[in-house]
């Protein structure tokens, strides 16, 4: 019968079954390498800390989308809405009331999370294209509100005059971006750990189930709506933290934090880095930032051509983005060394 395991392969036992889930949750080398390199960049590129900080913040934003898109399979064309809500919350708070960076961060997360929770009540009822269109609509609505509400947001001129107080009352944000880097690094790393815990939880498994076959879920007794709403809310809150971090470290908010461009570029960065493994989001954000920088030097007018081409190639070849290519290359090299 089909019962006999393939020759040479060990039979499954309770031990191997438990080990599968330990293996799934284990740190992979590319994750460790990324975080070591990110920390080391503080010493290697002291002149580029501001840019690196911004790339890492984008990384957190991409990771927040990965929870939705990479894990639950729910795309979004309006994720910048939550990034922008987090940024404006921290910005307005620091301009008008309270400039403590940690307070701004928590406020950004809460307001963006609340907005996400409200939107999730609409989005979780929909499927496929309808869902995508609603996220697009939410993004456009938020952009125009910020654009029109001049007295509050500064409209098209951007939000200025933030008074960010020293971190923990001691570390003043400096022009070289040292404090900004360390602050962002620690916050993003902690949230990365939290996101890791989430995707390796029963809830995370349910998200993968939604991605793999949403039609089967009700037949397992899972209504899906609760999972989608929770994922959307958490994702929005994380995006909000990323926005708040950007506002606090640059002490200025441009209206484009809410722009359609940002929603699209975060999608592109995720596909480039590799979906559904978290670290791909961080790597994709760095790669996208560097690539855009380099390509716009070569030809500022047509750099989107190359971004588009890379995107098409990655999707068509099914390589799993940069993380996929890295992993396969290393596996191949390792196999050759073993031989």
């Amino acid at each position, binding site marked *: 019968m089909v019962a006999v395991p393939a020759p040479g392969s060990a039979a499954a036992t309770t031990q191997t079954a438990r080990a599968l889930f330990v293996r799934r949750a284990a740190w992979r080398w590319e994750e460790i390498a990324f975080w070591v390199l990110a920390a080391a960049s503080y010493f290697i590129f002291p002149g580029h800390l501001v840019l690196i900080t911004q790339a890492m913040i984008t990384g957190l934003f991409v990771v927040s989308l990965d929870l939705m898109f990479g894990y639950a399979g729910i795309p979004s064309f309006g994720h910048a809405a939550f990034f922008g809500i987090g940024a404006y919350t921290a910005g307005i708070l620091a301009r008008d009331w309270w400039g403590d960076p940690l307070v701004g961060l928590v406020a950004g997360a809460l307001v963006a999370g609340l907005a996400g929770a409200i939107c999730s009540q609409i989005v979780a009822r929909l499927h496929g294209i309808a869902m995508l269109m609603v996220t697009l609509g939410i993004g456009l609505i938020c952009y125009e509100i910020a654009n029109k509400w001049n007295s509050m947001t500064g409209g098209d001129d951007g939000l200025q005059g933030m008074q960010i107080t020293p971190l923990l009352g001691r570390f003043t944000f400096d022009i070289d971006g040292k404090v900004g880097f360390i602050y962002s690094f620690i916050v993003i790393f902690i949230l990365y750990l939290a996101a890791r815990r989430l995707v390796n939880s029963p809830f995370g498994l349910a998200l993968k189930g939604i991605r793999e076959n949403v*039609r089967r879920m009700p037949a397992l*007794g899972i209504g899906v709506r609760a*999972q989608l709403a929770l994922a959307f809310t958490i994702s929005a809150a994380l995006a909000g933290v990323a926005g708040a971090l950007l506002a606090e470290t640059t002490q200025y908010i441009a209206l484009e934090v809410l722009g359609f461009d940002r929603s699209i570029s975060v999608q592109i960065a995720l596909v480039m880095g590799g979906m559904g493994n978290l670290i791909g989001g961080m790597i994709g954000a760095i790669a996208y930032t560097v690539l855009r920088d380099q390509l716009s030097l070569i030809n500022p007018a047509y750099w989107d051509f190359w971004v588009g081409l890379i995107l098409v190639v990655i999707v068509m070849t099914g390589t799993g983005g940069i993380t996929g290519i890295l992993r396969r290359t290393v596996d191949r090299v390792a196999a050759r060394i073993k031989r």
Partner: protein
Amino acid sequence: MTADIVLETEGLNRSFGALRVTQDVSFKLPRGARFALIGPNGAGKSTFINLLTGALMPSSGRIRLHGEDITRVPSQDRVRRGLVRTFQINTLFPHLTPLEATVLAIAQRHGLCVNPFKRLSGCHAEIDEAHELLDKFTFGADGERPTHELAYGRQRLLEIVLALAAQPKVLLLDEPAAGVPQQESAEIFEALAALPDDIAVLFIEHDMDVVFRFAQRITVLVAGQILCEGTPEEIADHPQVREVYLGDGEDV
């Protein structure tokens, strides 16, 4: 027997426009039953299953589970009450392993699927139970390989394992051995015959040998209506059944 009816429909109707695909179906499934639902293609068998599970809403009529009216209860809540199905066309999770998919079903039963804090690797009770269930269905090392890599017959078995992981009281099997070679099909039905006595099973199947071997009673559905219902012997001798379904020299 009426006292022990777990699933019951009363005057169930469903129309798609002018087309009445289910007509006045009243049906009873007692505890621990092994009943078959047969009928020619397009008789409305799958529609009937979809009405029972809540994938479709009836135009009129009632469905009762353990005596409670569940006609308007959503699919997932029917599953939680013990009404579970499998699908005629594999409806699985291609990139998850059978082990993960089974753990997912069990974690749901234990109310864990909205818990983002608990470590999955620490869910030993769920993992062990999933492993035991897969082991009973002789998955061996296949339980830990991605589902899409598995042989088709294995995937059919996984359909049943996932349903059992939800701890059904009523199990609806929509052609559980569809597309499986006869040898393996027999294995699937042996496994079903060995299910605990307190699970009531209703299965759709085209292979009459299998139906007559495993079903205690058979319901014949033709053009959305129950044509007749009875023991395999009664059905085999039923003149109308022979005519519309078994007839034309088909080997029964």
